[in-house]
């Protein structure tokens, strides 16, 4: 059934119907409505979970880690400073191979104090061993969280569903909620292995020397690679159930596109209007949404981008001293391949600066110029 719901409330609904058993979270703007709604669900008895109302995001993640180690399905949500405070234990969750699921509401990092969106918070956690999925719409948030639980529990890696502050978190729009029985069929209770259990005593995470640590990392990387296959299988299954098929790299009108706008998050949605407008004006523009950032869909990106005239990457983030992070990732995927197009980077929309249809069209147009620099600050007032 479709209901008009904000992104934040969608997160709470997904945790509820996904039957998260332990939720541990700490409030932070713009995520607060998630914890408020889950508190309400638990208090009203319509969500059968224990909500540990911790004193910090660090403890929120740690409590999820503890509960997940005991074998239950766990969930938390945070944003920016909160995610950064979790950083140490994001590693811990991944290295302990615990399928914690987290919703991060993309908010720019201070100082100065800011509550508006960009992706630097989540992309700074790129190498923690978490899967990352960037939502385009509230529907994506809901579906992404359910898919994440299932994939995470199969490959034993945690997963992060990421949505923009305000543009998604506070925006209400229709979301199709499947019936609980349907969700239960797709996402049965977690079957945990290697749990902390007095009947099977063992130590977890003890001191590990160079002889063995290296192999543990090798296995973790392989799990992330395996996740790619699992994501494809699970999204197929989810699509068969709901009619919504998710692709790790999702093209829009790319068949004959000469210029491809590479986008992520809610910007991917606006980009579709931009592409339609350009097409109506006779331009061969397409867009490619990166939904799964970790694992990165390298093969898909190659398949979709090799042979294009150019790729314009819209990065709502920056790796200072380098360029936008999606830009680097795309370049790395295409490097040395026949038919690799020029990849032109455009940083845009940091700290919640709006990215409108006309901005995306201007980026595409700038990219088509012969002398377009490799790296651009779009719309900056120098």
């Amino acid at each position, binding site marked *: 059934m*479709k209901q008009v719901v904000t992104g934040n409330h969608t997160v709470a609904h997904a945790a509820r119907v996904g039957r998260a058993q332990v939720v541990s979270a700490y409030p932070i703007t713009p995520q607060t409505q998630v914890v408020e709604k889950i508190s309400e669900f638990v208090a009203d008895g319509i969500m059968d979970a224990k909500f540990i109302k911790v004193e910090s995001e660090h403890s929120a993640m740690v409590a999820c880690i503890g509960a997940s180690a005991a074998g239950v399905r766990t969930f938390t949500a945070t944003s920016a400073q909160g995610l950064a405070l979790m950083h140490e234990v994001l590693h811990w969750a991944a290295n302990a191979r615990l399928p914690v699921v987290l919703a991060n509401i993309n908010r720019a990092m201070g100082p100065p104090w800011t509550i508006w969106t960009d992706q630097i918070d989540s992309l700074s956690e790129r190498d923690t061993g978490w899967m990352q999925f960037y939502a385009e719409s509230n529907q994506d948030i809901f579906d992404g969280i359910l898919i994440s639980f299932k994939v995470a529990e199969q490959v034993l890696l945690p997963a992060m569903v990421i949505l923009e502050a305000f543009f998604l978190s506070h925006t209400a729009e229709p979301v199709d909620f499947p019936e609980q029985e349907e969700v239960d069929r797709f996402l049965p209770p977690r079957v945990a292995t290697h749990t902390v259990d007095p009947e099977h005593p063992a130590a977890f995470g003890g001191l590990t020397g160079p002889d063995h640590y290296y192999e543990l990392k090798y296995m973790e990387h392989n799990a992330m690679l395996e996740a790619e296959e699992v994501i494809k299988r699970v999204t197929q299954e989810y699509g068969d159930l709901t009619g919504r098929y998710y692709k790790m790299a999702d093209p829009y009108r790319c068949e004959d596109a000469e210029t491809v706008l590479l986008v992520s998050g809610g910007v991917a949605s606006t980009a579709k*209007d931009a592409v339609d407008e350009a097409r109506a004006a006779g331009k061969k523009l397409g867009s490619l949404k990166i939904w799964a950032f970790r694992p990165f869909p390298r093969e898909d990106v190659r398949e979709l981008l090799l042979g294009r005239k150019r790729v314009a990457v819209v990065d709502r983030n920056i790796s200072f001293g380098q360029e936008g992070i999606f830009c680097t990732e795309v370049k790395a995927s295409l490097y040395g391949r026949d038919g690799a197009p020029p990849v032109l980077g455009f940083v845009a929309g940091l700290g919640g600066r709006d990215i*409108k249809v006309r901005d995306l069209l201007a980026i595409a147009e700038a990219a088509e110029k012969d002398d377009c620099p490799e790296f651009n600050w779009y719309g900056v007032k120098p």
Partner: protein
Amino acid sequence: MIEIRFHGRGGQGAAVASSIIADAIFSEGRDVQSFPMFGVERRGAPVAAFIRVDDKPIRVRCELEDPQYVMVLDPTLVEAVDVTAGVQADGVIVVNSPLEAGELGLGEDFRVYTFDGTTLSVEHGLGTRTAPIVNTTMLGVFAKITGLLGIDALEASVKKYFPRDRDGKNAKAARAAYEAAGSG
């Protein structure tokens, strides 16, 4: 695409009102998107909320600049903020005010309607003269004047958003306002 902007003061329920209208319009079969002003809300400070309506799926995710419809929940806001900013020519502006439209000084470019929502709200037990709760009342006025949605859909959505309002004061006020307001 139809774009709508609500002006209010923090605590007056402009964001809730925008959610209700979006919900009601969606129930009549159109796609909607609603969102508050992106920022920190403080009680009393001027705030805004936005709605997009379309017959096809709405995909733009950015702020809204040039609405066709504006609603002003607080009479004093007309002085405090530029409620006509970006409004398209011939756009409709609905203001909660005891004054006549012409007395507001909003110019000749727009169709301005006034309605004394405060009095009707207080009569329906929604707040007091000093702290009236006008958002649901003004939604009734807005529905009537713009013709964007029907009163039945609005009433259903109001009830959905105020499950603890057992007497249905909000829904009654919305309907009374709908009936009292002149049509656009």
